[in-house]
């Protein structure tokens, strides 16, 4: 993670407004997590970064009422999640899936297997898109390792047991469909 020590001055004027909230520390702590959440929904790195920026602009706009926020982490995740979903509605489905799948595969796979792996990723992404909305949302949020069941439930406004059931159904449905596709 990049250091942001050089930006100490950038927020000095904000300290007058609310000295208790260290915005630089919040950006440092949450920007990667928010990026991953937006990226899993939008499947575009540049758009995910735009969403993260929008989240922190919102944070800045609400900095005077931050004391009323009970759980800052869940609050930020929920904003990022909703902003990403809003953006996704404006996109065509599967618009950039092929490129996205290749970029994901290229990070983890050796060069000779990237194309095959990218094709597999592409088909999984397509099947994820075909899942029922609630199952899809739980599956995508569960992909982010830092998020526990309680936090996913908090973001989606569901109970923890419902989140567990949805996750189980999503995984089995996805597995079945991928097997059917193979045959």
């Amino acid at each position, binding site marked *: *993670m*990049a250091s*942001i020590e*050089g*930006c100490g001055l*950038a*927020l000095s*004027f*904000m300290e007058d407004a609310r000295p208790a909230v260290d*915005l*630089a520390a919040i*950006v*440092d702590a949450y*920007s*990667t997590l928010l*990026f*991953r959440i937006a*990226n*899993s929904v939008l499947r575009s*790195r540049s758009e*995910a*970064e735009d969403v*993260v*920026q929008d989240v*922190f*602009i919102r944070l*800045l706009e609400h900095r005077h009422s931050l004391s009323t926020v009970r759980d800052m982490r869940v609050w930020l995740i929920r904003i990022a999640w909703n902003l990403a979903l809003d953006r996704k509605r404006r996109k065509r489905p599967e618009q950039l899936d092929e490129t996205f799948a290749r970029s*994901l*595969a290229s*990070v*983890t796979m050796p060069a000779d297997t990237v194309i095959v*792996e990218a094709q*597999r*990723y592409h088909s*999984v*992404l397509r099947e994820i898109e075909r899942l029922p909305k609630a199952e899809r949302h739980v*599956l*995508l949020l*569960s*992909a*982010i*390792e830092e998020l526990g069941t309680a936090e996913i439930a908090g973001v989606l406004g569901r109970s923890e047991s419902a989140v567990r059931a949805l996750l189980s159904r999503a*995984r089995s449905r*996805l*597995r079945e469909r*991928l*097997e059917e596709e*193979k045959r």
Partner: protein
Amino acid sequence: MKDADRTIERLLAALRDAEPSTGIEHRLLQAMEAREAEAFAPLWRRPTALATSLVTALAITAVLIIAMALHQHRTAPADTRSHAPAVQRTTQPEAVAQQAPITPRRPAQRRHPVSAVPETQAASLPAPPLPLTEQEKLLLRLAHRRNPEDTAILNPAVQAAQSAKTTEQFQQFFAINPTEMRSQLE
């Protein structure tokens, strides 16, 4: 089945390990600083906001001027019309030379009906005609039709002659003929 599971796991892991581009924190802080500076900057340092404010102010002024002009036009339409020929006359050079001292402008005529009441009650003006009674309306209708039987009621002599004639006709009609009665009995 295991192959599908492995693919799903690998994809989810790839999503989980995605990293933003380097220096994102720096860019985010710069964006926040820019937004904050924009929010607190004076109006003349924000051309867009300044232009918007100017356009809004101009629009409000224009609306106010139009509203005032309309209000003036409504309150004194007769006054302005009566002054128009006077202005034309005074533009003539000889008229300017013989110009009478300027009299104070008459106040605009009130359109309220209260101002007309004293004029109608003044003695010099005839009283407004009263509406016709039912009898008068009936007579008027009869005169317009010119039916001799109907108009006879207006003339007592003609009416008496007409009633005598009717009585005679009645008696003639119901009078008993003795010869006819005898033949019927036989």
